């Protein structure tokens, strides 16, 4: 292949923005010869997180990309070689080393230097700036012998520097600011005062309204002298009084520069020479120097677009920012200062906990214009998005900053309500749509994976919480858990209806439909309401038999062909020989097929509906009761043989299983419930595959919940360990009642947990730590259900009116359905094939 002549792009400056330009250009096109000059000895590093250098991060940790990256991508990199001259006529740059490099396009990413005010004595030892890793190393070396230190400048970087001094162990750290408040460009007076008091509490001494007139000391600094005559003795001084754009090369080359510095650029980031661009903190756009990384990245994107025949332009930049200063959240967004008559402000202040929040709302209350957050900036991302996307405000906009109060979810503030084009990561220009698409189409489920996928969150990192919320929100939406209403007749979720029926003391389906529903109901809402009513009042299910699914209507399981099966309760799987003989004789008398079930009991199949009351009469007379195999209710509590027989058993799992099965028998729930008790860790009862599983330990019982067998097996998760029996039952009461009250119709406990916000940690908090303060209520509600237990079959057998319902032909009560036919297999009967 003959190498083509590729246009040469020379980048002067290897800082964050210069690096980002290379990365973005490479992503778009490799049809350039890319040459980079950097005056620092190391490759570009993350200056935004510079203070982490003191927190244990090494210089290598902070690198944007390792040296190898430049080689791998064919970039010629000249480090430690400052460009000294640009010859615009010859289109060459001249480096300190004597190298002359021609260019087709030149990108100035020279950044800025610390602004050092012209104060007598700034040359003294112990006076430093806070800008580069080298600066930090000097500060670090000096701080070791310093008892006191001051930072000149109470802006964002100044406070970062003050944190660095604190981290370095400087006993007495002062911040000196000329303006009457801290961070004068970002936050308002009240916010500044709150920040000040928080910083004071953390050991910083703040001096406002102080004009420094000179720096005292012989060879090295010993004090700051102020205009009002006062003196502050210090051993060292870090100057952080703002930045000065590095425009000297441009100046020398005759490019237009601003009066107060900065290389003038247009919307295409071109300087007064169309083949020379300037980006980052050296560029002056619309009279502004942008001292943040995100706008710098945006400028880099614009130049890449210009070089690759794109049409992107730079249109100014939102200077909203959020950071953690010495452990204090500080954020400002939109227009933090706008006031009456152009906006009205809502202010929240809690001096005790050091929280100040202000939001500025348009005079008509429809839109958010900006605000300030001190002490708690959790709402920052959402507020910023609300401003940038002009989202309509909810009726109570204060909810946006305070979170919803009164137990209801915040309205209109969900991350999923953002439009797809909402810019979430401004550093990398990743939209909400791109993030959600990565989840749905590329199965990205973690922030780390998202960073790899589209770089969202890799710049300043400020959007990471929002990225996480979007991932979770998208995953939740994928789980088809969107609008959670029962059916076309009830515009409520099961949980809402549970509460409504309870508060309004509603005890029948018809009353519920009249009060809260519409139409005539259907096969979805009828059994769901049946379950709710049973969970609330535990009334006899057959009193409202026409709203029950057929199994609950006939208190038996309908089988192929229309016959029913019969399952008496055999708690814990323990059964006497006499009981076995009763089951045998009943099955023989009514011609039933018998089989041991998965839940350690015996199922009798092939009963005609008209025979059910007679079958049960015999079973009940022999001491059996309903096994509720037909209900969305507790089925069985499976047990291993336990310590009474087993040589490994730690506790008597059978007795405990029987106790628990009898405790919860008959209670209706959103779906069926299964339990298990194992007498040791060998887990013969397979308790971890159950809705609740109990496993004996040396010290007591471990309680596992929300397991499932079935189509989507899922192991139960540990809720609590080493419980005594009474505490375990207490937790189980709470857990089951919480499930009964809050799950969706036909959601097993595993599904319920999977959809639960906060997952197992949340559930544990509710059940074990009573975080919602409802434990006593849950226990009382469960007690009501336990105390109102009745064997439904006994009620039917003893009630001639109820018995009448068990017939196939109303007009020929004794006749059986002639279509129910059987044939023989292995000595028993089976349903005749069609």
């Amino acid at each position, binding site marked *: 292949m003959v190498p083509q002549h590729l246009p040469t792009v020379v980048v002067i400056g290897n800082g964050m923005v210069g690096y980002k330009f290379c990365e973005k250009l490479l992503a778009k096109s490799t049809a350039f010869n890319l040459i980079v000059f950097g005056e620092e000895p190391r490759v570009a590093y993350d200056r935004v997180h510079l203070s982490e250098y003191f927190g244990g991060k090494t210089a290598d940790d902070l690198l944007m990309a390792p040296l190898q990256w430049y080689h791998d991508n064919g970039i010629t990199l000249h480090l430690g070689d400052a460009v000294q001259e640009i010859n615009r006529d010859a289109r060459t740059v001249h480096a300190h080393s004597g190298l002359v490099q021609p260019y087709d396009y030149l990108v100035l990413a020279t950044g800025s230097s610390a602004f050092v005010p012209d104060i007598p004595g700034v040359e003294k030892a112990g006076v430093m700036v806070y800008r580069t890793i080298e600066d930090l190393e000097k500060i670090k070396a000096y701080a070791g012998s310093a008892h006191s230190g001051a930072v000149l400048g109470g802006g964002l970087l100044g406070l970062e520097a003050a944190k660095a001094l604190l981290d370095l162990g400087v006993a007495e750290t002062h911040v000196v600011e000329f303006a009457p408040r801290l961070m004068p460009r970002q936050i308002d007076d009240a916010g500044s005062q709150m920040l000040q008091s928080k910083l004071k509490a953390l050991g910083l001494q703040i001096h406002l309204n102080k004009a420094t007139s000179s720096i005292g000391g012989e060879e090295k600094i010993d004090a700051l002298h102020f205009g009002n005559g006062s003196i502050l003795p210090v051993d060292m001084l870090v100057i952080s009084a703002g930045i000065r754009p590095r425009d000297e090369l441009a100046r020398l080359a005759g490019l237009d520069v601003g009066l107060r510095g900065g290389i003038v650029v247009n919307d295409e980031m071109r300087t007064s020479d169309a083949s020379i661009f300037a980006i980052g903190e050296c560029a002056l756009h619309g009279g502004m120097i942008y001292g943040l990384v995100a706008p710098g990245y945006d400028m880099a994107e614009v130049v890449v677009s210009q070089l690759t025949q794109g049409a992107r332009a730079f249109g100014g930049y939102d200077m909203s920012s959020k950071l953690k200063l010495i452990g204090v959240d500080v954020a400002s967004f939109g227009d933090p200062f706008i006031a009456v008559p152009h906006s009205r402000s809502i202010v929240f202040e809690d001096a005790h906990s050091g929280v100040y929040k202000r939001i500025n709302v348009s005079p008509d209350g429809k839109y958010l214009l900006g605000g300030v957050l001190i002490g708690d900036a959790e709402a920052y991302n959402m507020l910023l998005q609300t401003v940038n996307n002009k989202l309509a405000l909810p009726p109570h906009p204060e909810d946006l900053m305070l979170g919803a109060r009164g137990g209801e979810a915040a309205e209109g503030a969900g991350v999923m309500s953002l439009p797809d084009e909402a810019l979430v990561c401004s550093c990398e220009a990743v939209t909400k749509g791109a993030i959600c698409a990565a989840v749905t189409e590329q199965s990205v489920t973690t922030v780390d994976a998202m960073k790899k996928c589209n770089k969202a969150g890799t710049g300043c990192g400020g959007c990471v919480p929002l990225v996480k919320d979007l991932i979770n929100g998208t995953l939740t939406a994928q789980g088809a858990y969107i609008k959670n209403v029962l059916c076309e007749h009830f515009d409520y979720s099961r949980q809402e209806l549970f509460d409504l029926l309870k508060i309004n003391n509603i005890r029948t389906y018809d009353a519920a439909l009249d009060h809260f529903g519409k*139409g005539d109901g*259907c096969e979805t809402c*009828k059994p769901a309401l049946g379950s709710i009513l049973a969970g609330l009042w535990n009334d006899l299910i057959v009193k409202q038999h026409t709203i029950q699914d*057929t199994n609950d209507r006939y208190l038996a399981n309908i089988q*192929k062909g229309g016959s029913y099966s019969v399952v008496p309760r055999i708690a814990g799987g323990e059964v006497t020989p006499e009981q076995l003989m009763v089951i045998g004789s009943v099955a023989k008398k009514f011609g039933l097929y018998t089989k041991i079930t998965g839940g350690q009991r015996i199922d009798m199949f092939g009963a005609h509906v008209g025979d059910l009351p007679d079958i049960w009469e015999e079973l009940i007379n022999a001491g059996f009761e309903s096994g509720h195999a037909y209900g969305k209710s507790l089925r069985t509590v499976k047990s291993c043989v336990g310590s009474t027989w087993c040589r490994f058993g730690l506790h008597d799992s059978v007795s405990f299983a029987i106790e628990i099965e009898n405790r919860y028998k008959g209670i209706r729930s959103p779906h069926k419930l299964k339990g298990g008790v194992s007498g040791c860790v060998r887990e013969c009862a397979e308790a971890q595959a159950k809705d609740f599983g109990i496993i004996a330990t040396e010290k007591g019982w471990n309680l596992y919940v929300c397991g499932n067998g079935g189509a989507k097996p899922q192991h139960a998760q540990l809720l609590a360990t080493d419980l005594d029996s009474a505490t375990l039952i207490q937790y189980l009461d709470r857990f089951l009642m919480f499930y009964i009250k809050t799950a969706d119709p036909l959601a097993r406990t595993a599904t319920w947990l999977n959809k639960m916000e906060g997952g197992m940690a949340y559930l544990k908090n509710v059940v074990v730590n009573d975080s919602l303060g409802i434990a006593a209520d849950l226990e009382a509600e469960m007690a009501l259900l336990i105390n109102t237990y009745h064997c439904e079959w006994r009620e039917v057998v003893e009630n001639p009116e109820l018995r009448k319902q068990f017939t196939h032909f109303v007009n020929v009560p004794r006749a059986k359905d002639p279509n129910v036919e059987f044939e023989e297999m292995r000595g028993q009967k089976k349903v005749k094939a069609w």
Partner: protein
Amino acid sequence: METTTDITWLPVCKTTDIPADGGACALVEGKQVAIFNFARRGEWYATQNLCPHKQQMALARGMIGSTGEACEPKVACPFHKRTFSLLTGECLNGDECSIRTYPVKVEGDNVYIGWEAD
């Protein structure tokens, strides 16, 4: 759908034999007929008892209700929840065959099915 010609009204059962807002099966001329007492609307319906989906004699044990803006009355088979219009017999949620519907009338406490000779 309903015609009055050639219909014989056969007394089948008492109104109290069919539970309110539910159904029951009656044997009529050797055929299984599901009769529904839609008490909430003061209406009575009758259909074949056989669900065409899996050929189960079960519709009388299904739950009734309504659907849509027009509140079309329907019954859901207890086996697999196929639903059928009680007015037309049409399957509302699948491509099952329609079911047969029968005219019903109530006089006093007697329920009659209108029978056409096949």
